[in-house]
């Protein structure tokens, strides 16, 4: 397990004050967006699978804050609500997608698992475990092919590391010196299966050894540690050295809205909740005089309003028309 944030590390904040406030706002947005999603799911406004990222925000926000907006690429699996928000996607069309509406980012065709915002570099949103990893190296390959200094970040679950596509992609990235950062978000569980039944090694970053790829763990609950690690990894990747990071984190909720998560103890969940990255950051901002209580309250209100508006937008948007059925596919 990665070192917990030390006092000293916490002091050496890798963000400017403005940046930090921005990250806070985005983490809060993601949190509130997903709380709203959960609510809408229980009201049957959202169907299918719905996987929440709640608890893991420091990992995603930390990594993505190290990227160049509208330039670098990001790709992930089905637990994909937070990433586009971190990248600046407006919440309305994301929520509308979860509601299956015509105004959704994917026109209502993708749903919760298949969000995309290609013009911001967010390339989805994929449902087959491991399936996004070969695609990710393709994004990186295209950048290299065109001599563009774009980096790709690819998120991978601990449960996805055992699948063949992961290995093939690491090897290809290593051979071709692709500008990519593979981030295994080790949240201890693959659905209801604990790590020891899915991976032969407890240290998932160790996979890097087999490919001569730099690898290291990071405490994924510690925003600052993540950001420092991401800055370093992204810079190295941009220079053509693929990186493998294991971000150790935790999801508070079940695997999806359909899972009560009874395979783990209340204590286990509580332990992680005590390190909640959103609350921690609020505390940090106040403690360090970056934001006052009032300003924090204002952000909270703004975000609450924005998410309420997103739900209203989704609610009031029309369903996709029948003529959409055969559009955007060669049949």
């Amino acid at each position, binding site marked *: 397990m990665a070192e917990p944030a030390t006092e000293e590390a916490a002091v050496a904040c890798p963000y400017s004050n403005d940046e930090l406030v921005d990250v806070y706002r985005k983490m809060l947005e993601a949190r509130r967006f997903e709380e709203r999603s959960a609510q809408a799911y229980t009201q049957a406004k959202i169907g299918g699978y719905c996987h929440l990222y709640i608890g893991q925000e420091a990992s995603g926000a930390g990594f993505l804050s190290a990227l160049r907006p509208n330039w670098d690429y990001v790709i992930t699996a089905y637990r994909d609500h937070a990433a586009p928000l971190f990248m600046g996607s407006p919440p309305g069309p994301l929520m509308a*997608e979860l509601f*299956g509406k015509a105004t959704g980012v*994917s026109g209502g*065709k993708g749903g919760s698992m298949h969000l995309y915002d290609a013009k911001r570099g967010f390339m989805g949103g994929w449902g087959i475990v491991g399936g996004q990893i070969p695609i990710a190296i393709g994004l990186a390959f295209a950048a290299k092919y065109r001599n563009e200094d774009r980096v790709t970040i690819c998120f991978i679950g601990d449960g996805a590391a055992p699948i063949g596509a992961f290995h093939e992609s690491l090897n290809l990235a290593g051979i071709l010196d692709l500008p990519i950062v593979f981030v295994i978000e080790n949240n201890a569980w*693959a659905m209801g299966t604990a790590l020891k039944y899915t991976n032969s090694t407890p240290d998932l970053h160790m996979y890097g050894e087999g490919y001569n790829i730099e690898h290291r763990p990071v405490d994924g609950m510690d925003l600052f540690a993540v950001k420092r690690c991401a800055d370093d990894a992204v810079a190295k990747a941009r220079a053509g050295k693929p990186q493998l990071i294991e971000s150790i984190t935790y999801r508070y909720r079940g695997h999806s809205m359909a899972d009560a998560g009874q395979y783990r103890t209340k204590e286990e969940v509580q332990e992680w909740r005590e390190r909640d990255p959103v609350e921690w950051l609020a505390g940090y901002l106040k403690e360090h005089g970056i934001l006052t209580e009032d300003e924090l309250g204002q952000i909270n209100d703004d975000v609450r309003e924005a998410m309420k508006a997103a739900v209203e937008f989704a609610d009031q948007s029309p369903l996709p028309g029948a003529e959409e059925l055969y559009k955007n596919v060669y049949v």
Partner: protein
Amino acid sequence: MALMQYREALRAAMREEMERDDRVCLMGEEVGGYNGAYRISEGLMDQFGRMRVLDTPIAEEGFTGMALGASMVGLRPIVEYMTWNFSLVAYDQIVNHVAKARYMSNGQFGAPMVMRGPQGGGQQLTAQHSQCVESWYLHCPGLYVVTAATPADAKGLLKTAIRDDNPVIFLEHLGLYNMKGEVSDDRDLLIPFGVADVKRAGTDVTILTYSKMLYPCLQAAEELDKDEVSAEVIDLRSLRPLDLDAILTSVRKTHHVVVVTEDWQPSGMARELSGLIYQHAFDELDAPVEEVCGAPIPMPYAKNLEQMAIPDADAVKSAVRRTLARPGELAPLYR
């Protein structure tokens, strides 16, 4: 006889066969500690232990091949795919290895294994999670392809699958797991492959279907009854081998056929059925065979779009009316 859910019927089949034969084992994601993603295997790990009810990592290619290797030397593994969509990462192992092992070795070993799990749409699971895979596996010698639409069929057919010496693709439907029905508790009641089941007798039109589509077909038949149209609904159950005799017997009686699949076109089971009927009962048909199929598109998420993409009782009724009315030219089937 006992009233039980489809999922319980599957579980009963596995439990009884595992009690009968200690070479039978189950492997797949979440089948053990979690009791199955859809609770099919509930309690089995407690009863049979971790080795016989094995939780695997997400590595379908790896554990399918593992089951094959084990089957080649005498075990009789059941592989559960959480859904059949995920079997596509194991497609090479199934098609190039499982299906061919016995032939390539000229019978030095076989592959007595069952691959099972749910398929199909209707739950807003979107393009990568809503597919029907039967045609992809039908089109490969060496594999049986079997479906079950009722709890009784689920139990009887799965037991047959487990006892057979050839590899079996056993297709359940995600939308049927909660369905209840009477199931025999005879531990040796096997439903043979290649025997279709007339789920509703009729005289005017033959409706051929299988798996969950049975229900819109039965509903359509009931509604048509009010209009004095007598529809025979045949549940094919096993698709390979196929009960051609049962199909032809019905066609010779009704002279009108509608085939209904959730699976899409082209090169799907619907065209396979209509083509076969033409080949074998060309002169018996009073009208072209009507095909009612899932829309040939990646499944969209939006509820209304998904509903348009999956055949329902109305679509079946319209098709029955069309075949009985026998119009001249049909709308193009290819888009």
